[in-house]
């Protein structure tokens, strides 16, 4: 049901004229998450490849980099990247299903599932770190 329920009692939310065209709704928020996560992952990719290419100089160079990365700040960054990657994967699968399989129903539930998947991956990563 896309039809709106009668307006609940309460003040109308203030609206900025000329702001976002669309008021945020689940699939719109999913788009924003997909875009921001994609942007950050694309910018991170060359750094990731650079770090892995330490191995070209031998095991010691790679080990040196990994020990440098053993700080809480880097671990927090890694956790964020895992969540972003999982969110981008799940959100991308939802869009592929919409585009290629025509899964147009229950989009809001699917958005909730993708969010749950991303957080579950983050939690698993965290549990395995400790």
């Amino acid at each position, binding site marked *: 049901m*896309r*039809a*709106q329920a*009668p*307006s609940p*009692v*309460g*003040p*109308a939310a203030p*609206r*900025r*004229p000329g*702001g*976002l*065209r*669309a*008021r945020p*709704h689940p*699939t*719109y928020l999913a*788009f924003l998450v*997909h*875009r921001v996560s994609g942007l950050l992952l694309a910018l991170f990719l060359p750094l990731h490849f650079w770090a892995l290419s330490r191995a070209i100089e031998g095991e010691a160079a790679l080990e040196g980099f990994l020990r440098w990365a053993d700080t809480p700040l880097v671990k927090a960054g890694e956790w964020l990247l895992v969540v972003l990657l999982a969110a981008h994967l799940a959100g991308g699968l939802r*869009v592929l299903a*919409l*585009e*290629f399989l*025509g899964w*147009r129903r229950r*989009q809001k539930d699917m958005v909730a599932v993708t969010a749950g998947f991303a957080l579950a991956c983050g939690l698993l990563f965290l549990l395995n770190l400790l």
Partner: protein
Amino acid sequence: MPQTSREEREGPRTLAVRVWRGREEGGFREYRVPAQANQTVLDVVTWIQRELDPTLAYRFACRVGMCGSCAMTVNGRARWTCRTHVSRVAGPEGRLELRPLANLPVIRDLAADMTPFFDKWAKARGRFQPKDAPDGAVPEEFHVVPPASRQRREADAGIECIGCGVCYASCDVVSWNPDYLGPAALNRAWTLVNDVRDGAQAERLAAVAGDAGCHSCHSTQSCTEHCPKQLDPSAAIAGLKRRLFWDTLLGRRA
């Protein structure tokens, strides 16, 4: 017993209505309009024009949700005003802010210029083009279209569009790329792609491809969310993408 104010029980006695006056440059003017128990946003606009300010420009025709001419931005969201009840959008304080539809030039006050919107329907080849028989004769190929066939159902899903422009005004991609054809034109193209009697398939698919066409859509589904006819332009655009994907991959396109 929870305390409720008189406003919450009965609604406000007067509506505070801020209305856009001017063209692209302009400002809001506030009008006080008596509240009724049963009143649409279009009723409010009409009352202002008849009782307070005859210079107010706006557009309407049928008043019953068929013609698609009265859409405006109501409290920040594009809506068909003839079927939007004030009680649903104005809140207990009775506030309305009315602007012309976004993503379109403003003629004056609440009247948006729909020219780019309809030009894009033409660009997307949103017109049925019968197969064969350019002289008007009955075409050789005669189609029986069973209502339950998959293609007919795809076409039916999008056929009730009234061209109100709500989806177009709600679409972020249109505001980012002024060449983008928009949800309504692409939805129309998809209904025709599924019409087996149509003879302009290759030209239509070429017209809706690329960055100005279906491939710019990010499936934010604002069109589907806001369509007053409960259509799903987002799914129609996905259909166009799917069709063009396989046609391109399998070399079925020139």
